[in-house]
């Protein structure tokens, strides 16, 4: 029973290899079987251990837990586990095709799943590094999978920038190993609490190295430049996966490392709130000006990561769980939007929203589902985005509250801009859409609504927090949301739609690779200044 995490990691990986070895298209069904097995195992595991997560720890080979590699689970990792299983189901159904030869694709997809489960559950820093690097390689292969010029350049940009970040992470691990004598996360957590090691320059420097490596992986400002490139050019199924869950791997690491240093006297919440707010505002600014439907969604991932950071950076447990909740909700509605956008792009053969018109007349069901996603992301009452945003808002000061409102305004504006694809006359006579592709989109929409209405029991069950004071809908909320939409419409009509010079400039603004690395060093130095040099003075 305790070894279930091992099976969770190896079932998808071995299934992936069997699919790759037997060169029959029908073998693709094995992917669904493996996914089913993983789901059953995860549910069983959860039901067994949900009362006491401290029993989940085990070490491979039964060695001393400071020497071997250990796995452990807690409420956060289990919820991540279920979220990723759900998203992988959706992407698998969406891309599944037993007739065509999708062997290679399924191989990479399932391997990534196994590796991601490992990343979530590992309790060893170096093992974590191996998994991060493996994720990086797999994602860059998946991005390059289409073999077009765009995807190649996005893949190499992603691969090299993230490798630089991951190497900084490795350097941090080295320093921690020499100061603590082991790289077991649980052990380091207790050692930090019980000794004054965390006050030393070495451990502070190691913290900065780990965090700056993670900043690249989780696309924080100013290191988000790889994300819109990679997420916008991949296949839609892959984009949904990347934006939905894989980029959250970076935030998961952020949570893990923050918890590891929880006892250390570092003043992190101010700094990371500032980073989160900047990420959110910059991301939404880029999103408002884009014309490519997938670029818009990709930049929104950046801005939503900023909002999550606003919540996660807080020391207050309610605001923190707000950030966590927003992370789960974002996974749901962003996957929904990317999958829906994929269907639209497939039908209209263009990604430019200027040329997509009349979607509502051509595909009414899909349009309704997409609108559910848009309402969720822009924080409409009754939908899941609203709940998590209000939980985050609850713990903010006035100034911080207004920053969040600015981001919300930008989100509303850009989705008003995107919603014009629904209007207009029907331009396509008979769109060819596979019915199977609707299923995951519809399921995700249902999940969005469920999370919006039943947030109280779900949050209580998974994260053990009480959200009873946050109502899904009231007259005041609807009024506020309407006001927001109105302001967004004005902003769109009189600024964005006029296509002024600055708007064009922001749209075409791209950061080159060496500048991205320069920013990485800059970010790193600023972090050294804040966390190492400033406390010394």
């Amino acid at each position, binding site marked *: 029973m305790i070894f279930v995490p091992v099976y969770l990691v190896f079932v998808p990986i071995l299934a992936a290899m069997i699919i790759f070895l037997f060169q029959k298209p029908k073998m693709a069904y094995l992917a669904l079987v493996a996914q089913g097995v993983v789901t059953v195992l995860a549910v069983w595991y959860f039901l067994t251990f949900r009362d006491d997560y401290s029993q989940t720890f085990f070490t491979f080979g039964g060695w001393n837990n400071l020497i071997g590699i250990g796995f452990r689970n807690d409420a956060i990792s289990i919820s991540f586990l279920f979220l990723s299983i759900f998203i992988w189901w959706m992407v698998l159904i969406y891309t599944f095709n037993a007739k065509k030869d999708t062997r290679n694709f399924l191989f990479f997809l399932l391997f990534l799943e196994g590796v991601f489960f490992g990343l979530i559950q590992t309790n060893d820093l170096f093992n974590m590094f191996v998994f991060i690097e493996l994720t990086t390689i797999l994602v860059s292969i998946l991005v390059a999978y*289409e*073999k*077009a*010029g*765009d*995807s190649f350049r996005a893949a190499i940009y992603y691969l090299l920038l993230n490798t630089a970040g991951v190497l900084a992470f490795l350097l941090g691990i080295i320093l921690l190993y020499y100061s603590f004598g082991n790289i077991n996360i649980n052990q380091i957590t207790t050692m930090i609490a019980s000794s004054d090691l965390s006050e030393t320059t070495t451990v502070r420097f190691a913290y900065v190295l780990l965090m700056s490596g993670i900043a690249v992986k989780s696309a924080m400002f100013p290191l988000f430049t790889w994300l819109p490139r990679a997420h916008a*050019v991949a*296949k*839609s199924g892959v*984009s949904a996966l990347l934006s939905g869950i894989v980029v959250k791997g970076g935030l998961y690491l952020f949570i893990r490392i923050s918890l590891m240093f929880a006892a250390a006297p570092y003043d992190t919440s101010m700094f990371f709130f500032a980073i989160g707010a900047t990420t959110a505002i910059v991301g939404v600014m880029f999103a408002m000006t884009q014309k490519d439907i*997938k670029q818009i969604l990709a930049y929104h991932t950046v801005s939503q990561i900023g909002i999550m950071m606003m919540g996660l950076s807080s020391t207050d447990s309610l605001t923190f769980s707000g950030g966590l909740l927003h992370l789960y909700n974002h996974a749901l509605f962003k996957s929904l939007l990317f999958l829906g956008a*994929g269907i639209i*792009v*497939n039908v209209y*053969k*263009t*990604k430019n929203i200027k040329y997509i018109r009349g979607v509502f007349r051509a595909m009414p069901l899909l349009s309704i589902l997409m609108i559910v996603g848009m309402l969720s992301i822009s924080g409409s009452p009754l939908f899941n985005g609203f709940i998590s945003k209000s939980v985050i808002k609850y713990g903010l000061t006035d100034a911080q509250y207004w920053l969040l409102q600015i981001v919300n305004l930008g989100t509303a504006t850009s989705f008003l801009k995107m919603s014009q694809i629904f209007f207009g006359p029907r331009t396509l006579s008979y769109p060819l859409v596979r019915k199977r592709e609707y299923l995951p989109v519809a399921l995700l929409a249902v999940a969005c609504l469920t999370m919006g209405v039943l947030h109280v029991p779900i949050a209580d069950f998974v994260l053990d927090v009480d959200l009873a004071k946050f109502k899904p809908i009231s007259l005041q909320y609807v009024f506020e949301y309407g006001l927001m939409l109105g302001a967004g419409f004005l902003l769109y009509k009189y600024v964005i739609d006029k296509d002024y010079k600055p708007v064009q400039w922001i749209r075409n603004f791209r950061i080159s690779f060496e500048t991205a690395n320069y920013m990485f060093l800059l970010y790193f130095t600023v972090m050294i200044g804040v966390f190492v040099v400033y406390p010394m003075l």
Partner: protein
Amino acid sequence: MDGATMIEWTAYALQGILILLAIAIVLHKNNGTIIILIASFSLVTASLYIINNAPDVAIAEIAIGSAIIPLIYVISISRQREFIVLDRAMDEFIFIGDELAGIGYVLLHRLAEYYHLELNITNDPGLCSLDEAMDRMLCEKTNVDLIVAKDEETGKYVFKGKRSSTLMKKLQQMTQPFDNIEVILFKDSEFGG
């Protein structure tokens, strides 16, 4: 001077060399020279691993870092100095007899000179016998940079290449004075589905 101090001084000397090599790799302009530098860089690091009492790591570094990785570098850099042309016109445009002397050749040669590339012209019958409609796929999926074909109806020579390539833009400029040459550029196919 006893053994221990000698090893210490060797280590310092090697570290100095390592820093110099690293600076040279970062600042040098010619990628071909850098390959030799990177191979020696990994040899020096391997010796330093041994001095640091890590023979296992040194063996791994020598086997991987100074044999396989430089080879991969050599191949990929030599690939990036090439301009691969597939000649399907099969007349005196490029080859006159067995010699490369046709007007098309002169033109392409000038282009390759401009970008310091090596011109690699082939008229492999296996590829040339492929259907004309395959040209687009040839350009997209293989490493062929340019296809030279002849339009039977108009008698014009057609250059086919990728629209994304910088080289094609230059070629378009260069062929403007010629009436009998037409340039067709393929756009990358739409994707995202």
